[in-house]
């Protein structure tokens, strides 16, 4: 429980655990905010500059209102993807705003912000695979690795190729664009979030845990490390996924117990349960990797899952605006 108390302490800026002194930290933060606002007041005299100044204050205000530790920097890198992974991130609704308010600055995201080049980032959420016949894409993924502390392959395409595994070129107006690889075939990847689309809740959990890993105390780092370990192991395990993994890694290994999670996880209903065992329609499978990752007999950490109640409460609490 020590871990979770201190987790809450970090997430709440000590509101939950310490008495009396809890308001001392926010105050200086608010005072810091004021000079920014006063700077923008004289700017109202020059209409042309107002917009620029207001933009700056919109970005900075939430950061300064909240009594939290330093934020991490996060970027969204769009390779050969469909933006569905980003939509999934956004589908945390107000949770996304909480993440941006409290834990992370979005420093790069062509869909949402006007930053043109890949900056330095604590965490890069990379969606899509890489077209190796498009030199710009190859440069960008290399740049991403160089500039990021943690590279996350976000979604089935970045992790495993997913639907781009089926590309073979021959379409206008770049018929030579035929070779697509998951990002892990070009750079080292630290964390996988499989799924097509990855779920909002999974992205949220990884964001909170990545924050703790980078900004937390030792205990919080340990919790976050334990939580993220399976996704780090998936990243080490390789770049190929298929419904066949359910056969080769679970049933063939004598591990399947017929729970049906794989069938529930599959986005294209390629898996049905026949007499208690998964039956996979491999021609329907789009190779997203969700079934294997969701299977409780792929990875299962008692250390983490036994604490499910406390971890879920803590994540819920972290997501309070």
């Amino acid at each position: 429980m020590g871990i979770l108390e201190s987790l809450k302490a970090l997430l709440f800026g000590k509101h939950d655990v310490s008495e009396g002194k809890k308001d001392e930290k926010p105050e200086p933060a608010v005072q810091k905010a004021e000079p920014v606002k006063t700077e923008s007041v004289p700017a109202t005299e020059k209409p042309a500059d107002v917009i620029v100044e207001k933009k700056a204050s919109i970005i900075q205000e939430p950061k300064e209102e909240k009594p939290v530790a330093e934020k991490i920097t996060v970027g969204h890198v769009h390779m050969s993807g469909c933006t569905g992974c980003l939509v999934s991130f956004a589908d945390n609704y107000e949770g996304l705003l909480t993440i941006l308010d409290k834990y992370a600055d979005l420093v790069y995201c062509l869909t949402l912000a006007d930053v043109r080049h890949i900056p330095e980032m604590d965490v890069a959420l990379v969606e899509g695979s890489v077209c190796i016949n498009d030199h710009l894409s190859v440069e960008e993924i290399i740049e991403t690795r160089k500039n990021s502390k943690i590279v996350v392959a976000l979604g089935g395409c970045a992790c495993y190729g997913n639907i781009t595994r089926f590309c073979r070129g021959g379409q206008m107006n770049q018929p030579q664009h035929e070779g697509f690889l998951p990002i892990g075939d070009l750079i080292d990847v630290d964390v996988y979030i499989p799924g097509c689309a990855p779920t909002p809740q999974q992205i949220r959990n990884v964001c909170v845990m990545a924050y703790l890993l980078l900004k937390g105390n030792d205990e919080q780092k340990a919790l976050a490390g334990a939580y993220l370990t399976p996704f780090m192991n998936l990243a080490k395990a390789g770049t190929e996924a298929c419904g066949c993994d359910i056969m080769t890694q679970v049933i063939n290994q004598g591990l399947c117990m017929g729970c049906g999670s794989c069938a529930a996880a599959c986005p294209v209903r390629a898996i049905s349960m026949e007499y208690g065992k998964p039956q996979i329609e491999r021609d329907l499978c789009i190779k997203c990797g969700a079934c294997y990752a969701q299977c409780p007999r792929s990875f299962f950490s008692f250390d983490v899952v036994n604490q499910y109640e406390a971890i879920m409460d803590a994540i819920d609490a972290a997501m309070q605006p």
Partner: protein
Amino acid sequence: MVLGNYKQVVAARSTDPEILRGAQDGGIVTQLFAYALDAGIIDGAIVAGPSDEPFKPEPMVATTREELMASRGTRYSISPNMSLIKEVTRSYGLDKVGVVGTPCQMQALRKGQLYPVGLRDVPDKIALAVGIFCMENFPYQGIIQLVEDHGATKLDNVRKLDIGKGKFWIYTERGATVDLPLKVTHKYEQPGCHVCLDYVANLADISTGSVGAPDGWSTIFVRSAKGDDIWAKAIAAGAFETKPIESVKPGIDLVTKLATDKITKNQKYLESRATEYGVGKALRNPYI
């Protein structure tokens, strides 16, 4: 830790004679869901429903008392209840989901809530997870073998199957009883059960089984904050009759013994997978 975390353990049975009539033991599962449905705690539950083959369970979303009644009783073969865990929040449109399952299915559920890779919006919609004790399960074909071959009884004529007191029991509609020594059942066990390290559904909100309590009664572990709250409300509503677990025979000691036996045996098998299968190779261990 062989019994997991829990806030209280009691012996209990449903106060509803109609539920008890077709229940396996104390009718705990059916009564809990029926109460939770009435009280608006859940708006439906994933249960093991009937199918077109006798004693072959089929996962089903029950949203009425009638559907819950149809799911009473243990079917000793695989019911992939987790296969509906996403659909129940989609076409069924449920926001407050109940689900019953074996310990492995409770593990699958909690993993799904913590790591929802392919289960969008599922984590927050689980309102009541009821776990049932489980020593092992059987493929359906194994049940046919046991009942029709070893038991020389037509499965269509069977009223109830039960494992208890060291035997596999077959009760027919016409009142006959056949029992098989558990020894003959072992080779039909689902192989995936042999790496299972949970007997009493440690990860459920409330778990229940027959072991420990007298016939017609159940042993109940109330585990999570959610489970504690629902159990208290169900007791207050008069849904259950309870006895302190210390006052019943054989009581918690037998539960502890069986749980320890299961975990020790399966832990040993897991270790053998790492050393005895192959030369310089190991079978995969899912527990990292």
